[in-house]
C-alpha cells in the first residue's frame, strides 16, 4: 500500500575498485557540505544508518502521541484541550513525513511499521514513562521536546537532503511545543499549592529520563564516530546533553522548582552546570523493555493496528473495484 519502489532504481553491484572510488567521491561530497539525494549513490551502511535513525524518529513521534493522548480527554480547560489536540496532531504529521523521508531510502512505511509492532525497531525510551498528572503535559513539552530540539536542530544540516528538509519543519513545530510546555509549567508553578506540587512532581520524574534522551556517553556510543564523519550527526551526545542542562536549569529555577540532583552546581569558570551521574542501569532496563509503560505502549500500537485492519482492507478493496474509473 505504501511501497515507493525506490529500492529498484540501482541493482547493479560495483566492483571493489569502483566501490572504493565511489566511497571516496561520496565522502568528498559530504565534506564539501553537499546534500545527498535519494537517487545518488551511497554506501549501504549510510543507507542503513539513516533508515534506522529516521524510522526510530518516526516511531517515536507515533508512540509519543500516547502519553500525551492520555490527557486530551481530561485537559483542564477548552483552550488547553485545543492546544494539546493540535500538538498531538503535529506529532502524527511529523511521523508521516519522517516515514516519507525514510521511504526515499527504499524501505516502505509498511515494513517500518511492522518492525515497530514486532518489537524489532526501537522508539525513544522516554515514552515508556507514564503521564500521571496534568503538569506532566507541561514537563513533556518543556523537557522532552526541549531535549528533542537540541538533538534535532543540528539535523536540519544533516547530509541526507530529505531528512534535513523534513527536520526544518519539525523543529519549528517542536520549538512551539517546547514553549507551550514551559507555559503550562509556569501556570502550574505559580498556581495553587496542589498545582505547584504537581509541577514539582513532574519535574522530578521527567528530569533524569530527559537527560538519558541524548543517549549513552560518547565513550559508550556505538554510532557516534561514523555518524559524525557522515555528517548525519554534528555534535556528540555529551555535548548536546550539556547544552540542554545549561539552558534548562535556569528555566526551572526561574519557576522556583527544584531539580532532583543534589550535585547540580554552576561551574563559575566554564559557565556550565555540572550534574550528577546518570543511572545508566535504568536506561538499559527501559531499553530492554522493562520501563513502566513499555508493554502498554506496544499493546496500544498493536491494538490500534489490529482493530484498524478491516478498515484498511476495505479501503483497498474499494480502490481496486474503482481502478478503471480513476
Amino acid at each position, binding site marked *: 500500500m505504501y511501497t515507493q519502489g525506490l529500492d529498484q532504481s540501482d541493482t547493479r553491484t560495483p566492483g571493489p575498485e569502483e566501490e572504493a572510488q565511489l566511497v571516496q567521491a561520496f565522502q568528498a561530497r559530504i565534506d564539501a557540505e553537499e546534500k545527498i539525494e535519494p537517487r545518488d549513490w551511497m554506501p549501504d551502511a549510510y543507507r542503513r544508518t539513516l533508515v534506522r535513525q529516521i524510522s526510530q524518529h518516526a516511531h517515536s513521534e507515533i508512540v509519543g502521541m500516547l502519553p500525551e493522548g492520555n490527557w486530551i480527554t481530561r485537559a483542564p480547560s477548552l483552550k*488547553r484541550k485545543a492546544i494539546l489536540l*493540535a500538538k498531538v*496532531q503535529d506529532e502524527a504529521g511529523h511521523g508521516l513525513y519522517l516515514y516519507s523521508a525514510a521511504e526515499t531510502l527504499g524501505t516502505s512505511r509498511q515494513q517500518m511499521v511492522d518492525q515497530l509492532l514486532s518489537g524489532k525497531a526501537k522508539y525513544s525510551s522516554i515514552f515508556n514513562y507514564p503521564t500521571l498528572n496534568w503538569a506532566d503535559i507541561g514537563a513533556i513539552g518543556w523537557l522532552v521536546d526541549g531535549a528533542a530540539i537540541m538533538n534535532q536542530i543540528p539535523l536540519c544540516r544533516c547530509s541526507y537532503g530529505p531528512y534535513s528538509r523534513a527536520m526544518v519543519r519539525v523543529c519549528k513545530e517542536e520549538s512551539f511545543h517546547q514553549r507551550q510546555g514551559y507555559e503550562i509549567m509556569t*501556570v502550574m508553578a505559580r*498556581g495553587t499549592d496542589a498545582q505547584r506540587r504537581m509541577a514539582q512532581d513532574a519535574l522530578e520524574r521527567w528530569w533524569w529520563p530527559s537527560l538519558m534522551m541524548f543517549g549513552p556517553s560518547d565513550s559508550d556510543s556505538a554510532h557516534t564516530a561514523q555518524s559524525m564523519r557522515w555528517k548525519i550527526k554534528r555534535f556528540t551526545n555529551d555535548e548536546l546533553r550539556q547544552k540542554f542542562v545549561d539552558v534548562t536549569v535556569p528555566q526551572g529555577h526561574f519557576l522556583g522548582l527544584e531539580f532532583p540532583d543534589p550535585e547540580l552546581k554552576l561551574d563559575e569558570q566554564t559557565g556550565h552546570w555540572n550534574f550528577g551521574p546518570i543511572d545508566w542501569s535504568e536506561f538499559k532496563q527501559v531499553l530492554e523493555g522493562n520501563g513502566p509503560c513499555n508493554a502498554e505502549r506496544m499493546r496500544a500500537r498493536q491494538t490500534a493496528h489490529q482493530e484498524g485492519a478491516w478498515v484498511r482492507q476495505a479501503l483497498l478493496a474499494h480502490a481496486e473495484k474503482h481502478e478503471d474509473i480513476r
Partner: protein
Amino acid sequence: MAVCDQQDLFTYLLRLGDSGLVLGQRLSEWVGKAPMLEEEMALANMALDLVGQSRMLLSYAALVEGKGRTEDQLAMHRDVHEFTNPLLVEQPNGDFAHSMARQYFYASFAERLFDKLQHSADTQLAGIAAKAVKEFRYHARHAGLWMVRLGDGTEESRDRMIRAIQELWPYTGELFETDELDRRMLEAGIGVDLHVLRKSWREDLDRVLGEAGLPLPADDAWMHSGGRAGRHSEHLGHLLATMQFLPRAYPDAGW
C-alpha cells in the same frame, strides 16, 4: 439586531456549543487508536475544529448571559441535565464505521444549519457560522467518503457500516426537532427553520448511501429524543466525568 430575549439567545447558543463540545470530546478519544496515520490526523483535526467552534459559541453564550461566567465554567461546571446537545453526538465511538456514520449524520446537518446561520440577524453568531460551515463541509465530505468506502469495501466493512447506520439512525430525528425556542429564534431572524434543512440532508444521505450500495433507512422509524431538554443517555455522565475531572477536583485552580 432583531429583538430577542437574552435568555433565549443564551440557550440557543448553548445548544450549538454543547453539540460541538460533546462531539469534539468523543472524536478526541480516537487519538492514538485510528486505523491509519492519515486518519489519526483527520480525526484530531475534526476534534480540534469542534472544540474551537464550541469555545467561540460558549464564550459568546457566557457574554450574552451576563453573569460573569466563562466558556470553561459552562463546559466544566454543568451537570448532565444542564447539557443541551442532541443524543446523537454523545453516543460512544464504537468502531470506525460507527464514528464515521455519526460524524456524517451530524456534520451534514450542521453544514446546512451553519450555512443558514451565516445570515443570522445576530452578527456575532453569523461570523462564527461562516467559519464553522467550512469546517462542517469538510467533515461531512470526509465522513461521507468513508461511508462509501466502507459500504462498498469488503463484506465485513459493509456489515459494520450497515450496523452503525441501524444503531445511529434513531438519533437523527432529534436534530430536526423544532421547539418553542427554535420558533422564537426563527421569528427574531436569528435562528433557522430546521424542517427546511431536512430535505436536502436526506437527499445527500441518499446520494452517499446510493454510492455505497447501502440500504436506505426508513423515514418513519422510531426516533429518540430528549437531549436538548437535558434528558440524556447514560453515556454523557461518563464523558463529563472524564472531561470535567480536573476543574471539579481543583475548583480554585486556574490552568
